[in-house]
């Protein structure tokens, strides 16, 4: 636990990284926090499967890629028309000095370990969602990012740009309305097909898998990394890893952060979490993620987020409060809610460009602090599902109340030499 709040801010704005290698960011030296615009930021991408190859086009110039599958590396290289470094072991990529930002686009079971290692290596980090597979790893990433003064962002963005799924508008007008208590308090948010949010249950895992021969192009040991050693099956690796608890959290893990992060933002819960998670689901297989009917998060002040996977309540509003309701497409029980939102004061500005964040050392809108909190919602749900019971949670100490088995799932063992 970090005792001094000032300390956190210091570490945030300092920009002077201290790590195992010499890394003061090339552009922050001697107090001149001003980057010449011609100084392009460079990036290295770890994990160049389908998602990772998309990262090639994000801001920053690719100078290195890394993957445990040589086929992925070939495909990625074909998309880049200049000389870059190509690695199989991410630790070698982290040792490359001229990389400013590391993009982590591997399956989630690697995110924690790689993010911490990248922070130690003095790199800024752009990490795919969900942030980490376990709550414990999330805490470790927060600590490392803080201790090493890195900038961290997650690859989801709805809290600061784009149309927020079924609502048909960006999050900003909704945030303004809520912030001004137009619907009252506390609020209940429902995420379901009727309110415009699809829980992708096709990411359910299969059981009774047959082991397959490991393809020549894949370093399976490195693909597994910290995950338990189990015989290889094509049904459980690339793309399909989402359906298995060892690597991810099913549909909840896939879309969870996109949907839930803006909800935490809207409900002003960025620095805390729920006190209770309740589920209604069939028993989950110990290895394969399955479907669930309903998950409900309750906060201390009475706010709730309901994930209605079965879409039973077709009349549900997206937001329901004592003074009014808000439906998809900004329909509301309150007249002219769009006009009202336009007239209200803007919320606190957020840094929505990661390169700006990196250059000025100001925290990005969606960083390791609030990102861990929204990712925790996913992990709380996953733990409740896997245990098959409702859970009480202490969001201050970030541990479960009176549930040993649940607490043992906060920090989960990692294989081999991998730590976090």
């Amino acid at each position, binding site marked *: 636990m970090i005792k*001094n709040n000032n300390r956190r801010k210091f570490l945030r*704005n300092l920009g002077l990284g201290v790590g195992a290698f010499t890394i*003061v960011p090339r552009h922050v030296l001697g107090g001149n926090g001003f980057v010449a615009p011609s100084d392009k930021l460079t990036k290295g991408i770890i994990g160049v499967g389908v998602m990772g190859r998309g990262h090639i086009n994000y801001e920053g110039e690719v100078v290195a890629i890394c993957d445990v599958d040589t086929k992925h590396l070939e495909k990625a290289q074909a998309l880049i028309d200049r000389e870059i470094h190509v690695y199989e072991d991410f630790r070698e990529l982290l040792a490359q000095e001229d990389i400013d930002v590391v993009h982590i686009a591997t399956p989630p079971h690697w995110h924690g370990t790689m993010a911490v290692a990248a922070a130690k290596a003095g790199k800024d980090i752009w990490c795919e969602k969900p942030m980490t597979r376990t709550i414990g790893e999330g805490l470790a990433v927060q600590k490392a990012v803080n201790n090493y003064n890195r900038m961290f962002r997650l690859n989801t963005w709805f809290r600061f740009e784009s149309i927020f799924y079924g609502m048909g508008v960006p999050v900003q007008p909704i945030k303004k309305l809520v912030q001004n208590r137009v619907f009252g308090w506390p609020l209940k948010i429902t995420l379901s097909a009727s309110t415009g949010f699809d829980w992708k249950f096709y990411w359910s895992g299969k059981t009774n898998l047959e082991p397959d021969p490991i393809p020549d192009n894949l370093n399976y040991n490195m693909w597994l990394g910290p995950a338990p050693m189990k015989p290889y099956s094509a049904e459980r690796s690339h793309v399909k890893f989402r359906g298995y608890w060892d690597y991810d959290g099913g549909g909840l893990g896939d879309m969870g952060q996109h949907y839930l992060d803006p909800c935490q933002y809207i409900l002003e819960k960025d620095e805390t979490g729920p006190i209770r998670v309740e589920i209604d689901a069939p028993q989950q297989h110990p290895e394969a993620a399955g479907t669930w009917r309903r998950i409900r998060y309750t906060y201390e002040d009475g706010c709730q987020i309901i994930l209605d996977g079965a879409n039973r309540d077709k009349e549900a509003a997206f937001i329901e409060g004592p003074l009014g309701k808000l439906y998809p497409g900004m329909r509301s029980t309150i007249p002219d809610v769009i006009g009202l939102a336009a007239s209200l004061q803007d919320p606190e500005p957020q840094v929505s460009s990661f390169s700006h964040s990196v250059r000025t050392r100001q925290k990005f809108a969606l960083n390791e602090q609030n990102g861990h909190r929204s990712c925790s919602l996913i992990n709380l749900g996953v733990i409740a599902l896997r245990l098959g019971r409702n859970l009480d949670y202490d969001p201050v100490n970030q541990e479960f109340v009176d549930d040993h088995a649940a607490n043992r799932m906060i920090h989960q063992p990692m294989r081999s030499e991998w730590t976090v």
Partner: protein
Amino acid sequence: MHKIYSTIVGCFLTCSVVSLAMAQEDMNIDTILQQFPARDMAHQTHLVDQLIQLGPDAIVTLGLGLKNMGTGDDNQQRLALSALAKAKKSPDELVTVETGFGQALREEIPIDGQMFLIEQLQSFGTDASIEVFQDKVKLLCEPSVHAIRQIRSSHSLDALLETYEEIDGYCRQAVVKSLADYNDPKALSLLKQIVTSGPASNSLTYDLALDGLIKHGDKSLIPILEGMLAENPTRAKALMIQLANVQWEKGLTTHQAEIAEIILDNSPTIAERTAMYQILCESHRGHTLLPQDFRRTSEDEALAMSTALEYCAEIPLDPYVDQIQRISPAAQVQMLQAIADRKFIPAIPEVNELLKSHDEEVQMAAIRALSTLEGEQCLATLRPFVTGNKPPHVVKAAAEESMRWIDSSQVFTLEKMYEESAVTGKVALLGLIGHRHWSELWTTVKSGLDDENADVRTAAYDILPRVSAGVPIRELTTVAPIVQSEHELEQLRYALQAKSRTVSSPDSIAIPLVETFGKSGRKLLEEILPGIGGRAGLEYIQEGDNLKPLMAWSTPEAIHTLMPLVETEGSEAYSEIMRLMRHPELTCEQRVLHLRKLMEIVESEQAQKDVLSAFRMSKCYGAFRYVTPYLKDSIMQMTAAESLVSIVLPPSGEQYGLTGVEVKEALMQADTILRESDNEYGNAFLDNYLSVMPLTGDFEALFNGQDLEGWQGLVGNPITRDTMYPIDLQRAQMEANGKVNESWKVEDGKILFFGDGFDNLCTEREFRDFELLIDWKIEKDGDSGLYLRGSPQVQIWDPYREDDTIGSGGLFNNEKHASEPLILADNPVGEWNNFRIIMIDDRVTVYLNGQLVTDHVVLENFWDRSLPIFREGHIELQAHTTPLQFRDIYIREIEVGPDLNEREINEGYVSLFDGVSLAGWVGNKVDYVVENGEIAIYPGLGGSGGNLYTEKEYSDFILKFDFQLTPGANNGLGIHAPLEGDAAYLGKEIQILDNSAEKYANLKEYQYHGSVYGLIPADRGALNPPGEWNSMEVSVRSNRIGVTVNGTRILYDDINRATENDTLDGKEHPGIQRTNGHIGFLGHGSEVHFKNIRILDMSEGTIE
């Protein structure tokens, strides 16, 4: 119990009580095991309780059922074991379960199974399991070590230390990692031992041990790290700093100074120095290593200290602020940040001094600091920085900070500031106005748009789109004449476009523009209107000769105009059309019509593929029908397959996309084609949808594309036909059929009307409720229509044939209800249109080219207005003297609500379900709901989990209904049942079950669908697959029970005869004796749908 007696009687000497007990236990374990996976939490707890009661032996049995991956199905065992492991257990229960797991691990279980058991033990293992874990370390090192570590007791630490000695190599890594979790000298001592003996002798564990020691903040590391300085100073210093941090977090403040001294003695970089200062000032605030002020500091020291100061709240700033003028500009910047952050008001005079610095960075930092310290009062000081001739970044900073204290109600202040500013000030202020979308400052912006200075103009035009939303259109039009360059015109265009998004229709912007500039400003309008789009603008543009604006049009009406240009203008028109195809306003049906037309025009293979590819956005049946045949074309099939998948798969947020057997078959073909491609994602989605998509919802073709099979001529009208003698009707029909060819023919897949009379073309079949799709085309002044249920009509005509412009799609012959379409949705006359017509009961809904034109309107009975529309009838294509074309006619019949056919009504059947409510039913009305004319059971809605029963009781009856299962579904039909208690035993249950589910592969024969549960087995093989509907008939007469599924009799027996010796399942069934009771649906936690429930009650008297 019957069973026990017969067993004892059956085997005297060879049976023992033990085997008897085992047999019972086996039976019990199996029954429990079969119920996994549990349907919800309560069920899971219940099953776990039952298992625990069977003791550790049961767990061993489960463990023995585990298999290696790929050698068999052990899912239920895994589910059961993990439920046991994860459950909350009382101390006694914990002992039972842990003992069971431990015993199981001592049996011969395949290795994957052993690993599974150990993994499960990680969630609840205690010291009692340490021995077992230690035994398994050699075989399964990591899982076992992790399991020991999860216990986190002191015994577990001892075990780990012991284990370390007994193993070597990679296994030690797991142990060393685990030791880091124990805050215990014994653990630390081993870690230290590893570190001090150096990396060479412990290559696998050295780094992990070092990491672990650092996590503990152990001070004994300091000399070790100091020793590392010679070889690897950077790493050594970094680790030392990390150590200092960890200690600080743990509240240990005794050694930071020692570490600081070492680092500061060893050529620290700025970063290292700063980190140490910061740690020192937090832990040892007055320490001599920290510069006490800036009088004798080197540049590095000053910079590091000023950076550290920002966050050391404990150290007063005064001594440093006093000498702020001495230090380097870089350090000054940091000090200013510290002053601002800590809101150190006494520093204001120094800050003001620094405003005069020659260094831009310092100036900017001072501006920001002043703003934070003084708030609104800084405005006066900052004003000259905004309005004066300072460097641009300084001006910008001053403007930003000033704006913090001005809100949009102080427009006057800002206006004045702007007027007084030099170019840089104006530019900065305009930027900020734009950033905040302050349209209140329109006057200022406008003056910027008209300014002489190029930079100011640029700034103003840059923000024009951002303020336009709040500015009236008329005002925006006044900008047009002052525009001086291409770029400025472009910005105006964007602004008008942005404006048009805030109003309901682009016409409301286009029309005023045309009014103002129509005559003299054609060139200008040609630049601006394309971005706005809309019909009014398009009309205006079409009056001119210039095609360029058309090529840039932003809304899809332009496609009609562009299509003929593809042949003359070639690729530009084509690209523009393809771009517009993506427009969100374009409906699926309209897009399909356009793409079909385009496909006829383009010639190159690539263009054809592009067009076929563009179908992917269209998730409607018309797109599916058009694309599917291309699956057989060897060149186009890959493109067709990709498009097909997109067309069929559900849109985001919905569960199902297109459905039906035909769709599934096509999708499977597409799947085969795609498997050869590399599309990883596509296949995952596709596989899943194929396995869950409903097989209902097929359309059938009413027109085969070749001839008029299925169509006939018109005889009178439904009323007159009804009064004719059958033989007369037959004759008249034959006559009418003979004349059909005089006015109707088939050509190129289209039905053409070329006659000059009123001889409608009618379907041979009659239809009740349906969804109809049909494309039609007329010529100028054309007139036609669609007759539904043999009655007029859904209107088809030329909207411009008279002065009033009324489109097609209205129910023209209505007098009391709506007879005109809601909007004009017709395509230009001479082009194809598409109708989608839905008729349920007497209400009609019409979509014309995808747009709603008739909304659930009653179709009046033209032939006799005193009657409602007929319940069923022919569909007719109206002939009205003008030439007509029709193609692609598809229909899907809809079944809604309880539908007793005539025969059943005559026999005396009565509906038990009205299609809209649960009237007549009692019980669990929370999980059982009415939806789409069906009764659906969705478990887990919060209901008791109980059953749904009829209000009335029945003794003899024939019950008929339809049901649809989901995969693995389990329900049941209770008969002769009381309202409370288990209907299967207190009444009788006719099982409802998805026989095909894998998990039901090994049930007892009396557990399958249609069986009288536990008593009489039913035949299998009559059920349709889950997702399809089945019909079921259950007849009960005295003691005879009969069950028929999908027309096949699967059970018929006398219940007394079947149970005269004992019950098949060996249990007591008091319900056998009951001859009267409620009928019920017995929910067992699965989703099932029911409809068309009707009963012939024979409870009084008998019918043979």
